[in-house]
């Protein structure tokens, strides 16, 4: 038997793993992935620029700086009124929905170990939409769209997970079942729209394409609160999800309670997706694109929850701005813009050489 190799008597221990910054306070320590932070700052900068441009553009043109200043109450009262009362709410709705969908996509992709497994593709968006549309055209109800969207999203996710084999389900099978569930709910939405009168159908239309024009104020508030509560939970789950990118037996060996983590991840995905869909309708491609942008920037083995949120917020408000200005004064719904950008993007993901890399 060979002898144990010897280490230096004083091991070199004042180092963090490569690529990390390391902060210590007594027994506590925090590791910070440098590139995750620099990407985060980059995305925040992009988000501020997009916000400025978005607030500045409209019937009365402002400069982005004037618009940003007006948003925080500085500058001419007229500008402040214009920005705060008319434009800011729409921007906030866009940022919040984008962030929620970005996180939801990031969580579900990692859970299913497949970058195609986003809430939109596996039918959660369609479920939420069908129930929200039902609240307008089919069932006369005073229930908030958020509550109904949540019910619809939970129903769709429950069906997709249940039919594909429970909380242990992974990847491909889950996606195929989810697509079928989504198609069913999509057909249901169309059926309801076809059978209803013109006025109700017009009222429900923004729900079916995804638009920030018809955002219910109450749903935006609920989304804001939900995101505030959901982001820390997502960050906490991110640690376990990082390990769940290994095979199940390895993750279990490292102490991850797989079943509980999967159920919690799915619940949070449904929660965030439903709250966002209740505001903007089905803009599912954000959930596909945002985590991809985050992962590309971070280039790291973790699960980039916060960066996916920032990327989602930026993309959503950018797409909304493009939709508003491209053919002004006619407004193209943000869902349509995302589909136009997202379709080719999806093809690129599927066709590029490293497509086999699981998230």
């Amino acid at each position, binding site marked *: 038997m060979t002898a144990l190799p010897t280490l230096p008597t004083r091991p070199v221990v004042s180092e963090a793993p*490569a690529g990390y910054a390391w902060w210590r306070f007594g027994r506590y*320590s925090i590791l910070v992935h440098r590139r995750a932070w620099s990407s985060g700052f980059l995305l925040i900068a992009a988000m501020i620029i997009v916000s400025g441009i978005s607030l500045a553009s409209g019937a009365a043109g402002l400069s982005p700086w004037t618009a940003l200043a007006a948003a925080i109450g500085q500058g001419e009262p007229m500008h402040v009124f214009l920005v705060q009362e008319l434009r800011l709410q729409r921007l906030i709705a866009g940022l919040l929905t984008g962030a929620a969908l970005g996180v939801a996509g990031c969580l579900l992709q990692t859970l299913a170990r497949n970058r195609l497994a986003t809430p939109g593709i596996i039918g959660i968006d369609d479920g939420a939409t069908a129930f929200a549309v039902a609240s307008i055209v089919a069932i006369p109800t005073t229930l908030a769209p958020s509550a109904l969207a949540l019910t619809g999203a939970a129903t769709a996710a429950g069906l997709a997970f249940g039919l594909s084999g429970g909380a242990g389900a992974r990847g491909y099978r889950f996606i195929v079942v989810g697509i079928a569930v989504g198609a069913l709910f999509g057909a249901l939405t169309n059926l309801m729209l076809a059978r209803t009168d013109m006025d109700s159908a017009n009222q429900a239309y923004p729900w079916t394409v995804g638009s920030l024009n018809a955002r219910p104020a109450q749903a935006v508030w609920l989304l804001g609160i939900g995101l505030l509560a959901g982001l820390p939970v997502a960050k906490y789950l991110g640690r376990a999800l990082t390990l769940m*990118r*290994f095979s199940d*037996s*390895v993750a*279990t060996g*490292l102490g991850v309670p797989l079943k509980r983590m999967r159920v919690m991840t799915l619940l949070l995905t449904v929660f965030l997706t439903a709250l966002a869909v209740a505001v903007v309708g089905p803009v599912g491609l954000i959930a596909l694109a945002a985590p991809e942008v985050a992962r590309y920037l971070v280039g790291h083995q973790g699960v980039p929850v916060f960066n996916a949120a920032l990327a989602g917020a930026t993309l959503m408000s950018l797409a909304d701005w493009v939709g508003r200005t491209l053919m002004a004064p006619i407004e193209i719904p943000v869902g349509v813009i995302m589909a136009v950008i997202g379709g080719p993007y999806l093809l690129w993901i599927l066709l590029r050489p490293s497509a086999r890399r699981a998230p």
Partner: protein
Amino acid sequence: MSLLSSLLTNRPDHEVSLAAQSLSLGYPAVSIIENLSLHIPPGKVTAIVGPNGCGKSTLLAGLSRLHKPSQGTVVLNGKDINRLPSRQVARELALLPQEASAPEGLTVAELIQFGRQPHQGILRQWSEGDQAIVEAALAVADLTGLADRPLESMSGGQRQRAWIAMAIAQQTPLLLLDEPTSALDLGHQIEVFELIRQLAAVGKTVVMVVHDLSSACRYADHLVAMQAGRIVAEGAPSRIVTPALVEQLYGVKCILLEDPHSGTPIIAGVTRLG
């Protein structure tokens, strides 16, 4: 004890115990193991051997809480392993599963760092101890120079050593390895087995599923021979391995020689029965 060996075990004084009590394992339609009881001797290398399909990997999966028992219990330090929090078990028992797979692009050092997860928390993400044990695991597995290489660029033997190093970094008194040398050539097999002996020498308890009976005899202190979901013989290799046992397990005739180097049994002159 050397610095390295003190790093390898986190509590050298801590007596660890793992046992199966009337354990039954299987799937809804098929029972694989029925009413099996086994006590793992602490501080030793135990090898589970037997023909294909005898249930040795299933038993290891049961012992490591990957496979939930249909009846009976697996007892870790006096408690039902399936009722303990998974993270707590991960601080006592490290695992090398057969179908270990990692996300693409992961480097050796990153893989081994994941072994520290059971000891870390949201506010305790990295300590000097973590760094030291990762370095020790790299050194023991002879991977120090390869720390920044992506896993998929390495040879089978190196990759297997990296996975074992991750289990070592978990700093558990118990190590469960499912066919640690499968798909390795002779030289790499010896490397891995000698690494396992070193770990036993610093006080770790190792349980491994091994395909090759001669290797099991040479590197294990304790042999558990299984057939059709039952234990047919158990004890020190030189005591229990006989031509009759080999015939019972594998359905072959053989003669046993003594390894002039280690004094352990070697199976030779194997012929099929009848």
